[in-house]
Structure formats: structure tokens, C-alpha cells
């Protein structure tokens, strides 16, 4: 679907949603990845996990539905779908860390050419670190998808040879969805699987990471 315009956040989310197989068990990270839920097709049977102890989480609660005991990992009130189940935190993270989730979708500051992920801490002096479940998610799911803009505001790429930010996980990212291109991180290198509003040549020019044409 290569095209001549960059993707909006919704379009990126739709693209991720299309790559999630029906019936998958999926954890959507806080922030942009949450958008993916809106683009899962009706009847896909995709089951959403939230690490604070629930499977088959439903959409965000509307005003009349808010229940303070029913929130997602971002502490947003959510709803319960038929077939939902609840479990405690150790069981929930055992589920993640034991490799039972099919897909998790995460935001990122940086992804390296070998799939290292940096998404929890800028390392800036004075910044208070907070990690939450990011490190558990990064290493746990069968497939880890990252959604991010390919370039930072100052134009520097976020797909890099080596992460300069503190790592969340080593070699854990499988696929990267950005506004201008999608990438598979493979043992043969970083494969460009699609481009949007950028040419392959411009991409290779702007990234230090060696690319493989998909």
C-alpha cells in the first residue's frame, strides 16, 4: 500500500490492527498503541489483555459506565466484554513473561537495528524514572510491534544503530510501524516493508541503519 503521503496516527493504528491475526491475545501499551483497538474489525475475536489483571477488556467506559474498580493499565476506566476474566498481578505478569500473549504493541523513543527497545526513560538528568510494565511487555509477547514517528522533532531518526536512551529490552522488537515506513527486524537485517510519502532512497539517506528492500 506504498503511497505518497505520511500516515496519520489513526492510519498507523489501522495498519497495525490489520496485521493482528483474528483470535490473537494482545496487549496495547499506554498512549498511541491504545488507538489500535478502534481498528480491530468486528468479530475479529482479538482478546485484549491489560497487565493490571484482566483479559477481554472492552472499550473505554462512557460516562454512565465508569466503575472505579475497572480500569486499564493507563488507569482509564474501561469496560468488560463477555468472556472476560480477572486475575492478580503475579498471574497477569506470569501470563506476559511466560510468552502467552501473541502480540504487544508499544510506543518507543528509539529502536535499534537489532531490535533493542528504548521506551521508558530519557535518561535526562533530574528526570524521575518510571518503568511500569514496559520491560515485562518488551520481553514477553510472541511478537512485539512498535508504533512511533520515524523522526524526532529535530529530524534525528528514532530507528538507530544503537539506542542512546536507556534500554527497555534487548533484541525484542519484531516490527516497527512509523508514519513514513514500516520495518521488519530480522536476523538478516532491517527490512523495509512499506513506505508512505518517502522514497526508499531518501529513507536510506536519512537513516544510518543499513536497510534491506522488502
Amino acid at each position, binding site marked *: 500500500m506504498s503511497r505518497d503521503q505520511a500516515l496519520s496516527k489513526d492510519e498507523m493504528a489501522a495498519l497495525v490492527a490489520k496485521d493482528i491475526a483474528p483470535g490473537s*491475545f494482545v496487549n496495547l501499551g499506554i498512549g498511541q498503541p491504545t488507538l489500535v483497538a478502534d481498528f480491530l474489525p468486528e468479530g475479529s*475475536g482479538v482478546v485484549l489483555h491489560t497487565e493490571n489483571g484482566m483479559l*477481554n477488556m472492552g472499550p473505554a467506559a462512557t460516562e454512565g459506565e465508569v466503575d472505579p474498580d475497572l480500569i486499564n493499565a493507563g488507569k482509564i476506566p474501561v469496560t468488560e466484554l*463477555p*468472556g472476560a476474566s*480477572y486475575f492478580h498481578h503475579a498471574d497477569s505478569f*506470569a501470563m506476559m*513473561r511466560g510468552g502467552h*500473549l501473541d502480540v504487544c504493541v508499544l510506543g518507543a523513543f528509539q529502536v535499534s537495528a537489532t531490535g533493542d527497545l528504548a521506551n521508558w526513560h530519557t535518561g535526562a538528568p533530574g528526570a524521575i524514572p518510571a518503568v511500569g510494565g514496559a520491560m515485562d511487555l518488551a520481553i514477553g509477547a510472541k511478537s512485539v510491534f512498535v508504533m512511533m514517528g520515524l523522526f524526532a522533532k529535530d529530524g534525528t531518526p528514532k530507528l538507530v544503530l544503537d539506542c542512546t536512551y536507556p534500554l527497555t529490552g534487548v533484541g525484542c522488537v519484531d516490527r516497527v510501524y512509523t508514519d513514513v515506513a514500516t520495518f521488519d527486524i530480522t536476523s538478516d537485517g532491517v527490512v523495509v516493508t512499506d513506505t508512505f510519502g518517502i522514497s526508499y532512497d531518501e529513507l536510506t539517506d536519512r537513516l544510518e541503519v543499513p536497510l534491506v528492500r522488502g
Partner: protein
Amino acid sequence: MRVRICATAAEAVADVADGATVLIGGFGMAGMPVQLIDALIEQGAGDLTVVSNNAGNGDAGLAALLAKGRVRKVICSFPRQQDSWVFDGLYRAGKVELELVPQGNLAERMRAAGAGIGAFFCPTGVGTPLAEGKETREIDGRTYVLEYPIRGDVALVGAHRADRMGNVVYRKTARNFGPVMATAATTTIVQVAEVVETGELDPEAIVTPSIYVDRIVTG
């Protein structure tokens, strides 16, 4: 991936391969997946490693699987029982290998497999023959033995009810090893008395969430 509701136990176990490690639930007859074991005998896979609390009772179920010579190795906590004559005979004849594991280690090692734990320092068995040759370490003044996960290719679990999504509940002490085995196997097959519509099980009382269940069959 989505659970498959199988029409027969035969369909549910059709792809169990020779050489597989099969986790079999149950403590005595409570929670024993009898139909699945019978189907596995019928199916014919051999050279199996079986992980279960006991090593078969009487002549049916696991005992029958053993009697057919399908089991290369048994990993269990309590093989010797009044009615374990099939295992006893094979063991004495050197025809089946035994790894004897304290019951709590059996459960915790399968939990570790399901939870992504690489190994754990365990208080049970220290200074006994069952820890011989194993790595030990003193932590905070107490000695522990390093124990490793037990993973299964397949888990055969007996339970009470499932919904159509694959969420499972058990009944009383028939719960026993089922929930941990379901987390520790690549493919988990659950035999239930009844499949109900999705939404009929209380979300607060589901013991094995659907993520751990691959196939369901009513027995």
C-alpha cells in the same frame, strides 16, 4: 489463538507426536482427563515423557498408556500406590525411566515454565537424595536447591466447565494440577463436563483464562 471446540477426544489429541512431553492433570481420579488419555492410547503416539502426580492406577487411563509401552519416562511425585502394579512392573523390568520430584517442586517447576522463570532457588529437598548433584545456595542463612522449569508439548487437563471462548473452571479438589499444566504446555487440551455460552462463567471465578486453552472437548 482462538480455542477449538473439538467434536471428539480423538480429534483433540490427533497431532500428539512421538517423543512428546505430555502433562497429565489429576490427583488420583479427581481431575483425571480419562477420555483424553483413552484417545491418546487409541491415537498411538509413543516414546512419551509423561508428567503427572502419580504413575497410573489400576489398569485404565495412564496405567493403560504405560501398559501399551508408549511411555519412555515418567516424571511424578508418587508412583508407588496400592494399585500401581502396571508402573511397578515396568519400572522393575527397567522398561520405564522415573524422575521422582517432590510434589511442590512438580507444581512450581511447571508454574515456572508457564511464567517465564528460568530457574528458582527452592527450599524443598535440601540435604535429601532428591537434591543430590543439584546446585545449592545459601540465601539469608537458609539453603536452597536450584530447580528448573518443566515444560510440556501437550497438557491434558480434566476440568468442570468451559465457555465457548475457552475460559475454564474446575470443581473442588479436582482443580489440583490442571491450572498450572495449562500454563506450561505448548498445546493445552481440556476435557470438561459441559461447554457453556461465553459470558455464563463468572469473570471473578475463572481459574484458567482462555489464553491458556487451545482445545476443548466435552467428556
